[in-house]
C-alpha cells in the first residue's frame, strides 16, 4: 500500500451470475488476497471454500451462551427456592435437578440463542450504518441480482491499476474505485 491510496477504500467489480463470481473468487483466493469480499444477494453455496474462509466462529458463542444459561437456570432456582427463601411445597425437596429442569432447559436455549444472535452481529461488525460501499451506485443492486467482488486497499497485494486489470481479467463487468 502506498500513500496515494489513503483516500481509496478499494476497487469494486460487478459480475452477472453466481457461477461467474464463484470462479472469479477462486482466482482471487489463489492470488493470495486477504482483505477482500464477495457481495451477493443471497449466500452462494460453496462460496466459503471458494474464498478460502475459515469456519464461522458463531458456534463458540452459542456454546458459551448455552453453558451460561444452564448455570444461570441452576443458580436461579437454587437461590430463590432453596437458599434465599426456602418454601415447603408438597413436601418436595427445596432444590433438586429434576423439578426445575424445564426452567434450566429454557434458560439454556434462551442464552444460547442470545449468544448466537448477538454473536452473529458482533462477528459481522453490525450495526454499522456508514460504509464507503454505500456511496457506490452499483452497490445497491448487490441486494437484488448483481454480484460484486471488492478488493480492499489495505491488502498488501493492492495496487490501483494492477488490481483493476486483475479484476478485468476475471471477467468482471463494471469496475469502480471506491473512495473513503
Amino acid at each position, binding site marked *: 500500500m502506498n500513500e496515494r491510496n489513503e483516500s481509496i477504500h478499494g476497487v469494486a467489480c460487478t459480475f452477472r451470475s453466481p457461477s461467474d463470481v464463484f470462479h472469479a473468487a477462486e482466482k482471487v483466493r489463489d492470488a493470495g488476497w486477504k482483505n477482500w469480499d464477495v457481495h451477493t444477494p*443471497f449466500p452462494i*453455496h460453496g462460496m466459503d471454500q471458494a474464498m478460502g474462509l475459515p469456519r464461522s466462529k458463531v458456534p463458540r458463542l452459542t456454546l458459551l451462551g448455552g453453558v451460561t444459561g444452564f448455570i444461570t437456570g441452576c443458580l436461579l432456582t437454587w437461590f430463590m427456592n432453596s437458599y434465599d*427463601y426456602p418454601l415447603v411445597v408438597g413436601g418436595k425437596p427445596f432444590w433438586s435437578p429434576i423439578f426445575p429442569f424445564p426452567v434450566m432447559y429454557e434458560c439454556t436455549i434462551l442464552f444460547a*440463542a442470545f449468544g448466537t444472535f448477538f454473536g452473529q452481529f458482533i462477528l459481522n461488525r453490525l450495526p454499522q450504518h456508514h460504509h464507503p460501499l454505500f456511496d457506490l451506485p452499483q452497490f445497491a443492486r448487490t441486494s437484488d441480482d448483481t454480484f460484486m467482488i471488492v478488493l480492499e486497499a489495505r491488502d498488501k497485494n493492492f495496487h490501483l491499476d494492477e488490481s483493476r486489470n486483475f479484476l478485468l481479467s476475471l471477467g468482471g463487468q463494471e469496475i469502480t474505485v471506491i473512495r473513503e
Partner: protein
Amino acid sequence: MAHAPEHSTDRPEILDRVNPAELPRSKLILNDRGFHWITDKVCGIVEEPTPLWWKVTFVAALFIASFTGAGLLYLVSTGTGTWGLRSPVGWGWAIVNFVFWVGIGHAGTLISAILCLLRQKWRTSINRAAEAMTIFAVMCAGIFPLFHVGRVWFAWWLFPLPNQNGIWPQFRSPLEWDVFAVSTYFTVSTLFWYMGMVPDLGAIRDRAKTWWRKAFYSVLALGWRGGNRQWSNFEMAYLLLAGLSTPLVLSVHTIVSFDFAVSNVPGWHTTIFPPYFVAGAIFSGFAMVLTLMLPLRAIYRLHDVINQYHIDNMCKIILATGTMVGYAYATEFFIAAYSGNAYEKFAFVNRAFGQYAWAYWIMVSCNVITPQLFWFKKIRENHALVWIICLFVNVGMWFERFVITVTSLANDYLPSSWGYYSPTIVDIFTFFGTFGFFSVLFLLFVRFLPLLPMAEVKMVAPQADPHAH
C-alpha cells in the same frame, strides 16, 4: 428366501431392465422467474401505495381488536369474577384460548426451524409469514394468562424479579415452567424472525427512494452489506437458531401440556399429553398458515413462488398431524379403559356422552374427519375448499382445548361438586377481539416488512447454483 445380493449398495439389476422414468423434482419457482423478478415482487408489496383492501381490512381489524380492549378494561376495573369462572371450573376460556393461540404459533417454528434442519426447500417461500404468525399468535396467547392472574399490575411477580415482599417464584409449579417456556419461545422466535429478515430489509433499503423510507429500513437493516464474510456467519447463526428452536418448540407445548398432566384431575393426568399436544399444535398451526397464505397469494399474485407443490405439502402435513391427533383421541380412550381406574374411565365416557358431548363431537368431526379429505388431489387443488377445511381445523382445535379443560373440571371426583360452565359476554368479547389484534399485527407486517424471504427464495432458484452450467 430369495438370494441376497452381495453388495447391497450396487444398483439393482432390475432397474436396468425396466428402465424407470426419471421424475423431475417439483419446481419451487414456476415460469423460470429470475432474481430481479423476486426482488420486484416482494419489495413491490412494501413499495406500492397502500391498497384499498388493506385499509378496509385494517380498520375492520382495529374494530374487532377493540372488543379485546373493552373486555379487558371491564375485567380489570371490575374483577375476574366477570369471566365465567366459578367452582368447580376455575380454568375456562382463558386457558383454552391461551393453548389455542400458542398452538397456532407452533407451525411457524416448525416451518422455520424443523423443516430447515430437514432441508425442505419448499419452506422458504412461506417461512417469513409463518414466523410472523408465530410471534403474533404468542402475543395473543400471552394476554390470557396475564389477565387471568387477576391483578394484572402484579403480573411481573411471575418473573424472577426482586419485589418488596422479598419472595420469589415457586419453581415446583408447572405454571412457572410455562412462564419460562412461553417467554423464551417468544424471545427466540422474535430473534430468529428478525435475524432472517435483516438481509431483506437491506434489499428494501437499497431500493428506497424517499428519505423516510431509506431511514426506516436503514435502521432496521443495521448496515447489512451482504458480503460473503457476513453471509458465512449469518448462515451459521441461522442454522444454530434453527437447531435451538427445534427442541424449544417441542418443549413449549410439552410444558403447556404439563399444566394439565402434572395435576391429578382425571382426563388430564396422562403421559400421552406432551406428544399429543405437540401434534395438535402443528396441526392447528398449519391450518392457520394456509388460512393466511391462500388469500395473500391470491391478492399479491404469488402463484409462481407459492405454488400447488407448497399447498400440497402443507395439506399433507395437516393430514398427517390430524391423523395423529385422531389416533391420540383413540389411545386416550383405550388407556382409560385399560387403566381400570373408575374416575379415568368416567372422564372419557363423560367427554363423549356427557353434558359436553356436543363440544366433543364438534372436535372429532373437525379434527379427525375433515382433514381426511386431503387424501384427494382434487380437493387439495381446490383452494377455496382447502381454505374452508382449514377453518374447520381451527375451530376443531379450539374445541379440543375446550373439551380437555372444561369436561374434566366440570365433572371430577365428587358428583356433589359438579357444575356446568358457560362463558360470559366478557369472555366472548375478549377472545373475539384477539382475532382483530392478530390481524392488525399481521396486516402491519404485510404492509411494512418483506412478506417473503427474498434471499432464501433466490437461494433455492436453479440459477443460484454456481455449478449450474
